[in-house]
């Protein structure tokens, strides 16, 4: 089962290495990791998607709290959350197929951000399932490259999530 962790950390050099190193040496898996600034200066948010069982998740959260640079750990997937990822896909598309491909993109609210004679770059945002579905639909055309940012997420509403 996938778990989404939101980790608030001190914005210090090396903090990403500390967190990634912790997961590595304790043998916890990382599906994706996404980090950036927050509304508070000096504080970054790291969103990590992991697929461990719930007993291991207890240990993951406790071990994260031991890191001095970790301020707060929340398991977002336990609550109502908004989770989004950005994806770029380079697809082999001849000029004649372009409008067909556009037809696929429309329901996904994805857009074309680059056009060249035989390829397109498609940009899409959404949750993992939505992006996985889009990739599957684009497959027949010939996917040259995919780049995904990994999930970022936050709780819905003004709910205060206990850490």
């Amino acid at each position, binding site marked *: 089962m996938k778990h989404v962790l939101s980790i608030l*950390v001190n914005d210090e050099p090396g903090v990403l290495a500390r967190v990634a*190193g912790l997961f590595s040496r304790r043998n916890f898996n990382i599906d994706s990791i996404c980090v950036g600034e927050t509304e508070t200066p000096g504080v970054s948010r790291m969103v990590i998607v992991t697929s461990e069982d719930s007993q291991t998740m207890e240990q993951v959260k406790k*071990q994260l709290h*031991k890191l001095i640079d970790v*301020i707060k750990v929340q398991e977002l997937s336990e609550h109502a959350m908004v989770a989004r990822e950005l994806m770029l896909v380079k697809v082999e598309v001849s000029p004649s197929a372009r409008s067909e491909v556009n037809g696929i993109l429309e329901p996904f609210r994805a857009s074309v951000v680059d056009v060249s004679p035989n390829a397109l770059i498609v940009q899409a945002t959404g949750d993992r399932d939505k992006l996985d579905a889009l990739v599957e639909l684009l497959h027949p055309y010939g996917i040259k490259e995919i780049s995904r940012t990994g999930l970022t997420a936050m709780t819905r509403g003004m709910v205060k999530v206990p850490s």
Partner: protein
Amino acid sequence: MCAQTARAEDVMDLIKEEQGEMLSGAEILLRCLINEGVDHIFGYPGGAVLPIYDSLYSSAINHILMRHEQGAIHAADGYARATGKPGVVIVTSGPGATNLVTGIATAQMDSIPLVCITGNVATTAIGTDAFQEADITGITMPITKHNYLVRDAKNLPRIIKEAFHIASTGRPGPVLIDIPKDVSSSKVPFQMEERLSLRGYNPTLKPHPLQVERLVKAVAEAERPVILAGGGVVSGGADRELIRFAEEARIPVTTTLMGLGGFPGNHPLCMGMPGMHGTYAANQALLECDLLIGVGARFDDRVTMGRIDKFATKAKIVHIDIDPAEIGKTLETYIPLVGDVKQVLSVVNEKVKPARSEQWLQQIEAWKEERPLTYDKHPDTLMPQWVIELLYESTSGDAIVTTDVGQHQMWVAQYFSFAEPRSCISSGGLGTMGFGFPAALGAQLAHPERTVISVNGDGGFQMNAQELAVAAINNIPVKVAIINNLCLGMVRQWQEIFYENRYSHIDLSGSPDFVKLAEAYGVRGFRATNEKEAKQVWQEALAHPGPAVVDFIVREEENVYPMVPAGKGLDEMIMGDESE
């Protein structure tokens, strides 16, 4: 020998006067260390720390020059274990820093407070593969409680204050501060840091009242309770509270290697050490108990044997620990109690009622009598266990004993009864050979009035024997006992029992004549090959006012028993007399 050049109070006044003055990073470092109450530093100079050593030249701090950086950090570690204060070590960049790695991991595994200061190349040279450069913050990230790379001397007062706080509070551990050479020589306005602001660090010390209630109730209902006491009792200074708890609740106690002395070894309720080389009584108690109370212990695999499916299966588990991550890490825990062990037990002691343990206590006594620790004597041969008993009797058990790692370490744990905390100093978690002798030097400097005995094997002693020079030149009167069986004993034992006597590379022939080696360093050396000689030379060594080395030549083919083979449960102890 470095003489004190100023009294501590004079220095503190000077520090107050100096606020706002332009001082170098090195000078600021020294003042901050004094402000933290540091009086001993262990170290070894080099290029990247020249500015720091220049400041040390006329400082009030006592710097002990060791002979290998590993010796320096083990000495700081021994000092910390003997006092509870953070040990401090200063070394240079590159190889100096990397030589600390084993010592840092040793301290990390046993939760020992250390502040390790390494020099580094100038900030402009970092990342360029400069001469004597090493990414020590990267290398030690997984083995330190926290580490810092100081990029601006202005941050030094805050960083040092944080480092000491982190090292010595909560679950203690080693903290590393990496100081590039240009940072230690740059001059900035000196401003002592008064406040501590660590958003992400706030250890829980007070126990949760509900969990305390549950514990009191569980104890009152228990018929076969056991207390498993570990290193947390020692580092938390909770020995008095533990004695009161055990006595009032009428619960027998077993102490792990790290907990030895945390509960008096000759107390009627003490069952000795549990686990792989534990006593029969302690292991039987763990197998049969209905309530297991872990106090400052982490249920490590030398106790559980990695067989969680077989460990204390009849018991509900209570876990009292300052580190919430340890609770539930290994065992399913019925009552988790996060907090400082001393505070938790104080609260518990106000409410605790006795367990229903009269018959259980009688059973424990029966097990102790049925299978006490024994060994067979062989004529005209020194038995290693007998030597440990000699060390105990000759000091009435009132010595600080450090061990190295191996069979001798287990025999010390079995045959030397420790009455007080901080008297057994041993690398438990990492099992680092070469630890014992330099650690003894640190412990002796911490307690000049005590007898300090460093028990070693012939293998481990050779790993840091160069520190004999430090003992000689500073007249540190440690008594070194080498349990010399001319081989790597514990490995030999495993090869005998599990690898059908295929003794692969355990022969330590070619080791030096330890008496001559000691004397080469200007240290008194003695040898004993039988009991009469042993008693005589050991008395001489104890009476000698300086350091001494005693080479006890012991029987080679001697095994540590009981032994629980790796991967087996505590019910599968080998007692050593199976052939009879």
